[in-house]
């Protein structure tokens, strides 16, 4: 191998690796339907809200009750366990997700409303919840300031 070939190899290999890796990632995603890096897919409406995947919220809301509680897997987002979509959206601190669920017909009862209110300290989320406060719901949270 000549010196120029060696240098050419040193300089040329990284871009080739980048291109091949990129194409391979896409090929895996196309063939398997799952991206090799970002694999998380919501199993229910509550998870879709918790994962900030609003398109999945819309898709799942077409066949699921927007007020039904379901399990959000532990270890993926801060709040986990069985919760309603509105609680999961509040936990994600995304006002847009909360608004979307109200647009889709979410109507939390006072207990769910209070849990949603207390689970999120995001101003935008709390303001939206206050706009949709059901009769009898309290905005007092234990251990909150």
């Amino acid at each position, binding site marked *: 191998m000549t010196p120029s070939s060696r*240098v050419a190899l040193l*300089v*040329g290999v990284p871009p080739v690796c980048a291109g091949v890796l*990129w*194409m391979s990632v*896409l090929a895996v995603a196309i063939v398997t339907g799952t991206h090799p890096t970002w694999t998380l897919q919501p199993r229910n409406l509550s998870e879709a809200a918790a*994962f900030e995947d609003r398109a999945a919220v819309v898709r799942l809301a077409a066949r699921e009750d927007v007020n039904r509680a379901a399990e959000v897997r532990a270890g993926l987002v801060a709040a986990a366990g069985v919760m309603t979509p509105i609680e999961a959206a509040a936990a994600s601190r995304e006002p847009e997700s909360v608004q979307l669920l109200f647009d889709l017909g979410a109507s939390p009862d006072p207990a769910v409303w209070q849990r949603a209110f207390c689970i999120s300290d995001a101003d935008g989320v709390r303001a939206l919840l206050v706009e949709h406060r059901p009769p009898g719901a309290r905005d007092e949270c234990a251990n909150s300031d």
Partner: protein
Amino acid sequence: MSYPGPRAAAYALAWIFALALAIDLLWMPVQVGDSLGEILDARQSESAWAAFAGSFGTEAYLRPLRIAQIKGLFDLAQGSHYWLVYRGFHALLVVAAIMLFVRALRVATLVDLAAAASALVVLVGLYTFRGTVREAFPINHFLEVVVLCLATLNLTRSRGSFWIDLAAVVIFVSAALTLESGLLVWVVALTAWAVGWRGVSARGLAVMTVLLVGYVYVRFAVLSTGVPALSERSAGYLLEVLDPPELQRRFGAQPLWFYAYNVLASISSVLFSEPQNGVFQVVSSWMNDRPMWRVIIPLATSVGTTGVLLWAAVRRLRGAARLDDTARAIIVFVVVLLTNAALSFAYTKDEIISVAGAFYAFAAYGAMRDAMLTGITLRPAAASGCALLLCVLATGWSVRAAGVHYVLRSQAMNHQADWVDLPGRWKRDGAWPSDPAEQQLILQLRDDAVESRFPNTRVGGPGWPGRLWFE
């Protein structure tokens, strides 16, 4: 067993990048911002010609072909295939840009191939290029102008003929009537001719010049189309983004300083990858304890590559090398950079300077090739150091180029979320259209976006992409 030659290998690598980019672009909805209004306008327009004719007389821009193209593709969608025509056209444009770029390199040897591979990742990894793919407008006209300028570069490097001249003139007219930066086609043709690439003849250049003078006369004297005002949009300035009222307050009485900042920021963004969209991200990240790799790698690779370019230019200025293709490429790049930056005086945005970015990568090809050929003639220690430096640069640029995938995946999800929110937001704001046909169009575009499945880059994924690359 026969192996492909360096030229074929360069095209093969170009196809890999072009197809990867094209797939990523197809795997993305049309965006809402700066797009939906134009699509709705296209629906109301009677024809592409009507859209073209109706776009004269605006205050700050003269871009009739831009609107006409959006209308043309709208009609091509035949009321249902909007995603396919708009995203498909974007994918075609990116393939054209990559292939025209590689064609202009004229790869012949193994060293050329290595330099071309590096130049490809420089092209794709530059922030200026990223802007041309992350924005999913109905048509990304910034990318279109890059394609037209690279096509012109290829014409100037041809043997020349009447048809080449005619093609150059048609390209110039198309580019100039699409975006203001389309005037760079004339700059490319003129500078290339001046340095000895005379595929576009003096006659062709004369016709383009007459058309340029006509453009200036019609724009400013006949149509009285001005230039963008400070009050038009937000713009980056030093460490922050200023909104129009703040821009007006700070620079309304003395806009020249702001315009000068924009020109210098545009030049610097190509040479050093800082500032980005007018904001110095390195300083901002350091001050706010944000991840540093994603700003250090771009800065270091750009400084290194600009250094190699500078070294190649100085060698020639000192007479160590004649006016070869590398020198020509550097001269064309410098002129395009200065002109492109001057045209960006009103506000700084990475994609506006994308033509200069493409020519930076073109010039970097010659400089890297030069460095490789010179490096092997040095003493062993110096030769190894040179090879290592070039390898590190190529690796850094490869990391940057690979980051475009992350950017596009994140953007796809952002665009999708915008579509999800749109009907509710417009209804609450009283902006929801009363025309049922308009409503149907919006809901169809929204359904296209909502039904697509995109990887969730926001939650549950690894943290390293966000530390390595900017969204």
